[in-house]
């Protein structure tokens, strides 16, 4: 099977302008299904914008492509149903408790609410399940957002700086997420300025000034 047939992400000359400035510029990129890709670059290199483009949170100014076989512009709902983006904006409600936040996500994604408790256990937040998320530290909020990802297990997981603000224990949770995702055949794209944990990823892609500057084809198995 060729990369074209099995590509989880296939972008062609995707460009996104903000106020006339290119945050992502002519990016062509292929990611195979089940692949774990580390998108590396300095602040402002365009990693977050690229993840948001793939997640369909924003539209390309020009260029296009497919995600999980669905068109980036015209089949957004299908992409959203099969992907998840974890960013520094955790999408948590500070006045809801940890478990209420997850149950709300369950109702949006049509997931059994009973999975909320088990997800909290996996990220080590079961003892603060009834505590409002607004009183959590940044690291705890990040863990709670991770728990939301764990409940869904989408075909494509997009993680933006997932290790930021996390202590050692929580970093292990992210590592476990990457291992589990690989075992389950999920495609994972991690954006980070840090060096990748080599044993957890299949390929590193480097970005600079909105462009991909390393080879963009799928690495041979």
């Amino acid at each position, binding site marked *: 099977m060729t990369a074209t047939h099995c590509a989880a992400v296939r972008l062609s000359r995707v460009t996104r302008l903000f106020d006339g400035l290119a945050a992502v510029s002519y990016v062509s990129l292929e990611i195979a299904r089940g692949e774990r890709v580390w998108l590396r670059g300095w602040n402002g290199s365009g990693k977050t914008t690229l993840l948001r483009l793939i997640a369909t949170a924003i539209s390309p100014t020009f260029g296009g492509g497919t995600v999980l076989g669905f068109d980036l512009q015209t089949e957004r709902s299908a992409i959203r*149903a099969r992907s998840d983006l974890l960013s520094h*904006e955790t*999408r948590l409600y500070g*006045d*809801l408790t940890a478990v209420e936040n997850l149950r709300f996500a369950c*109702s*949006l*994604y049509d997931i059994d609410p009973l999975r909320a408790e088990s997800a909290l256990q996996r990220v080590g937040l079961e003892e603060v399940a009834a505590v409002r998320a607004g009183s959590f530290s940044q690291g705890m909020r990040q863990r709670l957002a991770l728990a939301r990802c764990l409940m869904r297990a989408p075909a494509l997981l997009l993680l933006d700086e997932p290790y930021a603000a996390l202590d050692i224990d929580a970093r292990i949770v992210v590592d476990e997420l990457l291992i589990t995702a690989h075992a389950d055949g999920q495609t994972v794209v991690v954006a980070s300025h840090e060096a990748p944990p080599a044993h957890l990823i299949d390929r590193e892609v480097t970005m600079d000034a909105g462009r991909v500057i390393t080879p963009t084809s799928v690495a041979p198995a």
Partner: protein
Amino acid sequence: MSLQVAQAIAVKDLRTEIRSRSALSTVLPFAVTMLLAFGFALGPDRLLLAQTAPGLLWLAALFASVELCHRAYQNEAANGGLEGLLLSPVDKGAVYLGKAAAAFVQLIVLMVVTTGIVIVLFGLPVGPAPALLLLTAVLGIAGLSALGSLLGLLAVRSRTRQAALPVLVLPLVSPVIIAATRATADLTHGGTAGISEWLSLLVAFDAAYLAAGYIVFGHLLED
């Protein structure tokens, strides 16, 4: 599924409001202060106060709805909540209906308090048909909630932010305010003739705003 989503959104918004008391601590004092200021400005003439009370009551409801809907979306936008709703694979119209339902409940509570103030301060009589008065309040608040919940999103996403909201809301909401004020004035001063026309107008605009919101909301939420 859509109704479940709308219910989840409404419950989440109301639970957040009950805990944060955002409306209670800001919108309610705003509405009360506005009514008091109008009362002082109009002077001690009881007849004049009673005659202007229906209009002032609905003006207070209008400004409260603008502030309340803006706050609701500000809270949603914090920490990427709006993006979360955008990326969830749900009917975005259902999200809108949930937001409108939550705004409706909050505005009804505000309306109860402000109506009490207007009855006491302005000497507004309840009139011989309190059920029709209640129906007028429900229909009027439904219109304000429907429009505010749509345009509140637009205001949060636009560059001009909060300044855009009154500019957008006021012209569009005029039919609701006029119909609700006229119906309230007629009912509180003893007349029920012609009420059905005003109530029909309210029903028509409520339906139009809700339908427009259901259809347009998803497009406004997109990048």
